């Protein structure tokens, strides 16, 4: 076992949230080390191919998956520098004010300890940092005013414009989507060329993945990235009051210890609780920062109801970005589908660029077809297919959780077990959004429209280390600092008490920036 010189901050995970913490702390003059379990990806590794694109995702399941709706995570999880944000879609919607006091307002779910106004300045800051294209003024039909985005909206294409016609016909509103992609040149990064390969990694840097934003800034400020470094435990002082180091296995599978004044866990939402539970000591018998028993609890996932439409016209569906051309919060009221027994917000995106293979590809829009019928469909869909997606919110329940399993990985660390089931209100929301999607699709004038109904998907993973006011009802405060160990911080969507319905990365970046600035500002009272 090797001990490394003590650093100011060790950050576990070089994805979206870890990169923000690294950039802020390194620029504040701190010595920062990022430990990343996967490779150190470079932009020229990002091959435009759905087949080759699978390289940048985790390999199979080190997590055991249980429950009525097992959480299928590999599609959206990260592996290597950039994390999941290396292949994310870069939709940049924000939460809305009705997301922050769900329990107080509706008697369901949980409350956040902060409000929309606490995060709003950080959404604006992130937009200026990484580059967001959109029409902020247009969005203000749904949300409080904020700063304009630094770039105008992206181009639209017939595959997106078709949905605008459907929304208009029903009196529903659809505005240009806010995306973390350059509609114009931004900070030396080029404008997007709309070739639709965002989801396998954008090698030109038009899409704001961490390699060209916060992680690049962190490196420039002196942060060190150690790839293939698998963290297994956080070590604590004898009295249990402080985190002192992390234990990890390096690229040669040799055990190492990295001492640090501050430990930031910025792995994904299931891995952070796995590490905390695996770091139990006599002073923390149930795992670190877990006197509440809530480490690993209140996992939430999004789910999406997709609606397909097929036109005879050439929609150029291969053009655009994997992010949306348009979005809508018109069904964001938690009770929008109350009559169907549903509860939770819905966020709709329209007009993503289509790929033809892989999980989200056109071929899977008709999973019932195979053989000659599939071939005929693919020919028709090649230029005439488009899709609407309605993302929706699952309420947090304590039984959706991460636990340690008895089986162990190659480093002797217990595997994580993710237990997840959707409740009846979520299932009702899933079904209601298909009905609404079909109504909209028919209003577009499409020749054919159908719901992409299949097993209820699990999209994005949030919760597991939720924020709250006290150590009795939460794991961290609103900055991600654990209530019980002042120099142990958690970054990422694991600290979301509720999920809202929008894609989470914009909020992950904003909360991470807020947390990292708080840490830097109060370093003297936090660091050990």
């Amino acid at each position, binding site marked *: 076992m090797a001990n490394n010189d003590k650093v100011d901050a060790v950050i576990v995970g070089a994805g979206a949230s870890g990169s923000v913490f690294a950039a802020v702390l390194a620029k504040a003059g701190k010595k920062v080390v990022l430990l990343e379990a996967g490779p150190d990806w470079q932009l020229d590794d*990002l091959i*435009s191919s759905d087949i080759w694109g699978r390289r940048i995702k985790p*390999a*199979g399941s080190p997590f055991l998956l249980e429950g009525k709706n097992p959480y299928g995570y590999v599609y959206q999880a990260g592996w290597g520098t950039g994390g999941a944000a290396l292949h994310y879609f870069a939709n940049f919607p924000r939460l809305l004010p009705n997301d922050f006091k769900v329990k107080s307002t509706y008697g369901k779910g949980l409350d956040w300890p902060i409000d929309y106004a606490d995060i709003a300045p950080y959404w604006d800051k992130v937009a200026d940092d990484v580059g967001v294209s959109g029409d902020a003024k247009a969005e203000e039909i749904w949300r409080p005013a904020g700063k304009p985005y630094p770039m105008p909206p992206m181009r639209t294409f017939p595959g997106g414009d078709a949905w605008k016609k459907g929304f208009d016909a029903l009196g529903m509103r659809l505005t240009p989507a806010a995306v973390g992609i350059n509609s114009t040149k931004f900070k030396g990064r080029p404008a997007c060329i709309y070739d639709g390969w965002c989801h396998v990694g954008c090698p030109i840097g038009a899409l704001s993945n961490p390699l060209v934003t916060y992680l690049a800034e962190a490196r420039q400020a002196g942060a060190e990235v150690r790839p293939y470094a698998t963290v297994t435990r956080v070590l604590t002082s004898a009295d249990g009051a402080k985190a002192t180091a992390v234990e990890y296995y390096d690229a040669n599978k040799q055990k190492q210890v990295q001492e640090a004044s501050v430990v930031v866990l910025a792995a994904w939402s299931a891995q952070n609780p796995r590490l905390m539970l695996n770091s139990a000591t006599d002073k923390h018998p149930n795992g670190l920062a877990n006197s509440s028993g809530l480490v690993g609890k209140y996992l939430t996932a999004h789910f999406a109801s997709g609606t397909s439409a097929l036109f005879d016209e050439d929609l150029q569906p291969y053009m655009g970005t994997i992010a949306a051309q348009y979005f809508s919060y018109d069904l964001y009221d938690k009770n929008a589908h109350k009559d169907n027994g549903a509860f939770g917000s819905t966020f709709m995106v329209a007009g993503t660029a289509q790929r*033809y293979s892989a999980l989200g590809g056109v*071929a*899977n829009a008709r999973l019932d077809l195979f053989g000659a019928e*599939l*071939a005929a469909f693919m020919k028709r869909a090649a230029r005439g297919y488009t899709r609407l997606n309605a993302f929706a919110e699952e309420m947090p329940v304590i039984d959706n959780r991460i636990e340690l399993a008895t089986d162990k990985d190659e480093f002797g660390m217990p595997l994580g077990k993710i237990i997840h089931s959707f409740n009846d209100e979520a299932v009702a929301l899933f079904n209601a959004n298909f009905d609404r999607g079909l109504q909209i699709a028919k209003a577009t004038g499409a020749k054919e429209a159908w719901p992409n109904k299949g097993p209820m998907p699990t999209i994005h993973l949030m919760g597991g280390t939720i924020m709250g006011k006290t150590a009795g009802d939460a794991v961290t405060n609103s900055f991600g600092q654990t209530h019980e160990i002042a120099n142990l911080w958690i970054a990422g969507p694991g600290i979301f008490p509720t999920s809202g319905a929008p894609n989470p990365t914009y909020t992950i970046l904003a909360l991470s920036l807020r947390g990292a600035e708080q840490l830097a500002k109060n370093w003297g009272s936090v660091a050990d």
Partner: protein
Amino acid sequence: MGETLVPGAKDAGVTYFVDQQISIPPQEALLEARIMNVKPPFANFYRAALGAIDGASSARYGGRNFAQLAANEQHEFVDLMRQNKLDGWKGAAASFVYFLLRSDAVDVVYGTMDGYAHLGVPYQPHIAPTRSW
């Protein structure tokens, strides 16, 4: 099976694709099985799938495995498989096996630069793959 699922899969090399991909370390594999949370090594999934298919085929068609069926029987079998309606099926759900094997066939037929050309749509790569897989 690949050709029954997606016409052109045999000539596009679906067998070689899967065979090669299960022979390399799982963290290098480019299979949809990786994305669908199948636990490595991925060869275990395919071995079990082949056994389940031939077992269910034999049970339904008088001892004949899938490769020995007539084209219309193969079509009927796959249609039942995707709906989880095969008696005597063993292992992972038949619909899930259908999904992954179909995805492999779709990969080699439609997920390549040749596949896009066949569909008549531009591939437009930033960085073109130097080989299909």
